């Protein structure tokens, strides 16, 4: 059964259309990334999915029905602020959130469900700090405690807001291990983010821009064959200033420059006009470059 089905959802605040005819679905076992710049409509859409906002038009179905108290109990939500009490211990936080969810929802019995290897890791690492105040823990561990709280009732759907933000790369692998293990056990995950390292971990992406779905699919499909002009020159400083003055979206990467969303001739012309010698070649665009182009396209 499809876990989340959003059909043609529009949400208006007065004259502002925050979400404009958006459709998306999350299936069991899937990790779906919801991407968008600030103001693209991510937060409003998530609030509609959580049942906190009623869409102006269109339909949200969670587990085949309208969002309600019961659907809420089958959801695990980790907000960006983590939703933990810093001045309570880890054990107290977990007890508090367990009580908020009451009994495990029917059909998913925690006692009989086989824990995946990552669950064991998570439980062990969190148990090791059970007596410590959440506020005293490093961010990576705090995030894992929030995951443990969100997963304790074995939710069918995880909604995660920038779940690995601020954590070191090795720490991030532990967090993704937990998300992936939940997906392998049949849960779905909807991850909102604007970090490319998080987008890369998802099976499928939905890119919002200006309230609308600007692109949807795997990262490779969204990137397509977009290309970027790479500028190699021993005097990158001069080339940078020349391209910037020509109004091109130039970026410094190491000691070479990249100019996405334009053609080689425009770059060559701008450099020639400033008398800068440089080698140009066309290289595949990065996902971030593609994403910025999508977001800018919607703003234009």
């Amino acid at each position, binding site marked *: 059964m499809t876990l989340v089905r959003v059909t043609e959802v529009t949400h208006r605040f007065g004259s502002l259309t925050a979400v404009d005819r958006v459709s998306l679905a999350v299936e069991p076992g899937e*990790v779906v990334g919801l991407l*968008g*710049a*600030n*103001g693209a409509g991510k937060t409003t859409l998530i609030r509609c999915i959580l049942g906190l906002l009623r869409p102006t038009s269109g339909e949200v179905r969670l587990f085949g029905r309208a969002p309600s108290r019961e659907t809420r109990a089958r959801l695990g939500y980790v907000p960006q602020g983590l939703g933990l009490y810093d001045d309570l211990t880890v054990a107290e936080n977990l007890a508090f959130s367990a009580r908020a969810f009451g009994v495990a929802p029917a059909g998913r019995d925690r006692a009989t469900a086989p824990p995946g*290897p990552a669950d064991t890791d998570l439980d062990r690492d969190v148990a090791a700090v059970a007596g410590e105040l959440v506020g005293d823990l*490093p*961010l*990576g561990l705090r995030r894992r405690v929030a995951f443990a709280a969100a997963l304790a009732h074995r939710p069918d759907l995880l909604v995660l807001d920038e779940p690995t*933000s*601020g*954590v*070191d*790369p*090795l*720490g991030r*692998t532990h967090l*993704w*291990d937990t998300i*992936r293990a939940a997906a392998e056990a049949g849960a779905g995950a909807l991850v909102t983010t*604007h*970090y*490319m*390292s998080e987008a*890369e*971990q*998802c*099976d499928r992406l939905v890119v919002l821009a200006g309230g609308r779905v600007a692109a949807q699919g795997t990262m490779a499909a969204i990137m397509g064959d977009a290309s970027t002009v790479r500028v*190699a020159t*021993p*005097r*990158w*400083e*001069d080339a*940078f*200033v020349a391209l*910037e003055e020509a109004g091109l*979206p*130039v*970026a*410094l*990467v*190491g*000691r*070479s420059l990249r100019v996405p969303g334009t053609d080689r001739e425009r770059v060559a012309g701008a450099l020639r006009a400033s008398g800068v010698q440089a080698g140009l070649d066309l290289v595949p665009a*990065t996902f*971030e470059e593609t*994403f*910025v182009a999508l*977001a*800018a396209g919607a*703003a234009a």
Partner: protein
Amino acid sequence: MTAGAPDAGHEHAERQPGSGGPWSRGSSSGGPWSGGRPGSGGPGQAEPRPRVRFGVEDLVVAYHGRTAVAGVTLEVAPGEVAGIVGGDGAGKTTVLRALAGAVRPASGTVRRPPARRIGYVSAGPGVYRDLTVDENLAFAGAAYGLRGSALAERAGRLLDRTGLAGARDRLGGQLSGGMRQKLALAMAMLHEPRLLVLDEPTTGVDPVSRAELWRLVAHAAATGAAVVVATSYLDEAERTGSMLVLDQGRPLVAGTPEAVVAGIPGAVLDAPARPDRGTAWRRGARWRVWSPDGSTVPGASPVAPDLEDAVIVAALAARERAARDKEMAA
């Protein structure tokens, strides 16, 4: 004041007791593999120009007797962007504070321009919420003795460059995250600092504003500033000319991003499922496996590793080394 002009006569080179010898460009980086060192140049670099370099060497900082960072070396020259990479609590802010002269090292050398030639953006808001954009800039300008037409001219150019020109009368607290960070950066760049120190300037900023912020950073470097940027994101580290990865206050690996990737010991493999042996971690729905001696692992095939793989391997190697050391001691 001639903006960006070298005034090497005013360098501050502070050496604390216990420092390891004179500042030298040739010393080792202290990382787990010698993939170069921050600021050591890289492929495609022009013939070296003799320039003043800023940075820290063998830096140790302690707070209340507890070591926060140790053994940290980082160099940056004018026109370069160096990255300090690490998660929350890795020690990035401590190194930046020492570099900017805001905290006194327990030992080691700090080389920086005089305080009035440093621009610093701290983590967090960094702008006055109840002052307008113009007032924020005037306030920052006053701190550096900039006023009148010099301030107006400089602030005007930065407002244009940051796209904040239409928001001059907006309160700092009313700006979006991206605009606020751009204002903080503009405030730090107002006096054309020779060393620009930025503590996670893109946190909470979306990719569109992030690209604009990095363009400002690159512009500062292109016009002669030495820039040090802290970040927890490797896609940002990839933009730097040299990077230093910190883990629990210690250097993990350093060099140009290419050198850090090229220096991975052994091989990185890709596998559809977790293999029976080898150190593995998830990458999307698949697994990455590290083979320290480069040997093959059944069911896994070699991949071209990226910066993320390199930093994960460095962290794993450091953990394994620490575990071995502990065993030896026991």
